C-alpha cells in the first residue's frame, strides 16, 4: 500500500504508482556526537553530509532516480543524458543549503522532482527550504517531503510549497489526508495562499 500523498491542482490523493527511486548513500561509520550526555540529534546547517568514499560507492539504478545532493554535485557529469530525459531528481537533508544546489544548477526546473529529507519532524528548517525553492528559485516541479513526515505538520508543509508527502511508513496516509485542510482561511501570505486574508477579503 502506497503511503505517498500528492496534491494535484490543490486536490490531495494517495498515489499508488510512483516511479521515483530514492537513492541513498551507503552507510558510513556512524559518528555519534555526545554532548552533555545526550546524543546530538540535529546536524548543523552547512555540515558535510557524506564522505568521498560514500559518494563514489553510491549505486544509482536505472530509471527515475532522486539523488542525494552530495552525489549530484560530485557525479553530475554521469547523469547528463538522464537529466535531459527528465529522470533525475535531487534530495537534500535539512542541514544542507538550498543555495548550494541553486549555485550549482541555476535552473532548478531541469529537475522534475526535488525532495527534502526530514530526519525529525520537529526540524522546521524544511519549511524555509521549501519556501526558498518555490519563491527565490522558482522551482515548479514536484516538491516532496521524505522521512519523519506526519499528518500534523502537513498543513504547514503544504503552505510552504511541498506538494507531495511520503507519510512515515507506520502511519496511515488515508488518515493524514484530512489534516491538509485543518484551516480554511489563514491570516498571512505564504507560498500557497499567497495573499494575506485582508487582501483576499474585505474585512470589517
Amino acid at each position, binding site marked *: 500500500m502506497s503511503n505517498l500523498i500528492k496534491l494535484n491542482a490543490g486536490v490531495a490523493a494517495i498515489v499508488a504508482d510512483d516511479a521515483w527511486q530514492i537513492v541513498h548513500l551507503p552507510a558510513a561509520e556512524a559518528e555519534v556526537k555526545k554532548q552533555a550526555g545526550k546524543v*546530538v540529534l540535529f546536524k548543523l546547517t552547512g555540515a558535510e553530509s557524506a564522505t568521498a568514499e560514500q559518494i563514489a560507492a553510491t549505486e544509482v539504478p536505472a530509471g527515475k532516480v532522486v539523488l542525494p545532493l552530495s552525489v549530484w554535485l560530485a557525479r553530475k557529469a554521469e547523469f547528463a543524458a538522464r537529466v535531459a530525459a527528465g529522470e533525475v531528481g535531487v534530495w537534500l537533508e535539512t542541514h544542507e543549503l538550498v543555495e548550494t544546489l541553486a549555485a550549482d544548477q541555476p535552473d532548478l526546473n531541469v529537475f522534475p522532482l526535488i525532495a527534502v529529507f526530514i530526519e525529525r519532524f*520537529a526540524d522546521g528548517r524544511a519549511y*524555509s*527550504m521549501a519556501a526558498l525553492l518555490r519563491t527565490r528559485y522558482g522551482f515548479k516541479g514536484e516538491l516532496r517531503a521524505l522521512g519523519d513526515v506526519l499528518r500534523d505538520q502537513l498543513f504547514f508543509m503544504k503552505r510552504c510549497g511541498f506538494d507531495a508527502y511520503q507519510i512515515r511508513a507506520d502511519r496511515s496516509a488515508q488518515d493524514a489526508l484530512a489534516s491538509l485542510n485543518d*484551516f480554511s482561511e489563514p491570516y498571512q*501570505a505564504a507560498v500557497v495562499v499567497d495573499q494575506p486574508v485582508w487582501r483576499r477579503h474585505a474585512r470589517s
Partner: protein
Amino acid sequence: MYRYDEYDQRIVDERVAQFRDQTRRYLAGELSEDEFKPLRLQNGLYIQRYAPMLRVAVPYGLLNSTQVRKLAYVARTWDKGYAHVSTRQNFQYNWPALKDVPDILAALASAQMHAIQTSGNCIRNVTTDQFAGIAPDEVVDPRPISEIIRQCSTFHPEFALLPRKFKIAVTGALEDRAVLQMHDIGLQLFRDAAGELRIKVWVGGGMGRTPVLGSVLHEALPWQHILTYIEAIVRVYNLHGRRDNIYKARIKILVKALGIEEFKRQVEAEWAFQKDGPNTVTQAELERVAKSFTAPDYEALTDSDASFDARLAEEKAFANWVKRCVHAHKQPGYRAVTLSLKTIGIAPGDISDKQLDALADLADKYSFGELRTTHEQNVVLSDVKLGELFALWQDAKAAGLATPNIGLITDVICCPGGDFCDLANAKSIPIAESVQRQFESLDYQHDIGDLELNISGCMNSCGHHHVGHIGVLGVDKNDSEWYQVSIGGKQGNDASIGEVIGPSFAADEVAGVVQRLIDVYVENREPEERFIDTVRRLGVAPFKERVYADRQPGKKKVEA
C-alpha cells in the same frame, strides 16, 4: 479593543477542532508522547508536576469583562477555582485534566480567546506596554502593530517549528515598559522628523541561562515593512539557529556567534527578496486595525476633583493606595489604576474565580469594560475617572485587590516554581512569601520605596530575575534547593542585567539576605535615591560584604 471578525473566529474554531482530534488521537495511543509534545505545547499545554498547565493567550495584555468572566468560569469549572497571571501577560491554569482541554478551548473561543502559540518553539504571544493608548509619554499606540504581528505570526507555516521559542515585544512610549531589550525581537515605535511612523528594531535579547541585552538591528524601519522584516529575521534564524543543544538554540546565540554586523547583513540580504511582498502592510490595513483601538467615550473633565482631594487628605490608607497604584493618564480627569495581585499569603499573580468576576464588574463599572494584565503580574484598569477613584478603592478592597504595594518590595515578580512547574530547580512561591513577611510593614515598604524583587525557580527565568533590582534564582545543588542572589538588574530604557553577589543560600536565609541588602541601602542612600541607584553608585561590593560578613558556608547561616 480588537473584536474578532468571521475570519478570526474561524481560525480559533478550527484550532479547537484540530486540537480536539489531536488530543483524541493521543489518548487513543495513535500519537506518541514525542509527537504530541509540540502539538500540545503550541496550544499552551505543559505536563506539570501534578496536572497539565494550560496557558491562555492574552494578546498584548488586553481583555474585556466578558473574557474575564469566561476565565472565571473556566477556573470554576475545570480548575480549582483560581488562575494565575504570568510574566508574559497571559493567564495560566494549573489543574485542568488533559481530556477537558478541548472543551476549555471551546469555551475560550466563545469569548474570542485561545491558547495558540503560548508555548513551544514558535512565535509566542506579542507583549506590550500595559499603559498602551493612555500613557502621557506615548508617542505611538503600539496596539495596532501588535495586533498585525499577532495575526501574521498565528500559524505562520514557515515558522511553526523554530529552533526555540521566539518572543516579540512592542512599545511606543518614551519609557520602555515592555522590557524590549530582553526579547528575541524588540520593537520601539516612534515618529521621525517628518512625522512618519518608524520602528527601531532590537534583536537577540533574552533571559534564560545566558542573559543578553538586545542589539539594534535597524534604527528606523518604515512601518509598512514590519512583517516582511520580521519574516526575514525569523527565516535566517530558522535556517541557521542551532538545533543541537536547546541551551544554545535561542536567536541571541546565533546573533552572538555571527556578530550583529554579519547577522544584519544576512537579514538585509534575505529581506531584499521579501520587501514589498504581499505581507507588506498598507495604510488601509493599519487604519482598519487601528479602529479597534480608538479611545473610549471620555467625558470632558478638568484634571482635578475636589472630592478626590478631600478623601486624599483625610484617609491615609487611600492616599497610600493612590501613591502606589494610581498612574498618570493622557486624558484630563482620568487615571490608570493597578490592582495588586500580590497580597501576602497568596502566590504572586494568583487570582480566584470570585476575584475575576469582581474584576469584570469593576471594569464594567469604572473603566469601559476593559482591563489589562501586566508582566509584573498585576491587573490594570486603564480609564478611571478621578472622581471615582475612592469608590473603586473601596470596591477593590472588598475584593482583596487593593494592596497598596505596586512597585514596592512586596510586589514580587515570581514564577510558579517548584510547587507546580516541572522545569523548576527550586520552589519560588514560599521564597516570595518569606520576603513579603519580612517586609510586611507598609510604612517600612513605603520608606524603602521603588524596588523590584524578581524570583525565578530555574534558569528559564520566567520570574525575570536577571532584571530585578534584587534577583533570586533557584538552583539545584546536590539535590537540594538553593538560591542565588543578584543585584543591579533593571528593566526600562537603561536596562541592565544583575550581578550575582556570591555563593547561594538556603531557602530560610533568603529573607535575611534581602534584609541586609536593604539595610546597606537605607544606611547609604542619598535623598531621593532608589535602591537601584545606590547599587549603581556604590557597586556590588558593600552589599556583598554585609551579606557574607559572618557567614561561613555550611556552618553559620544568614539570619533575618
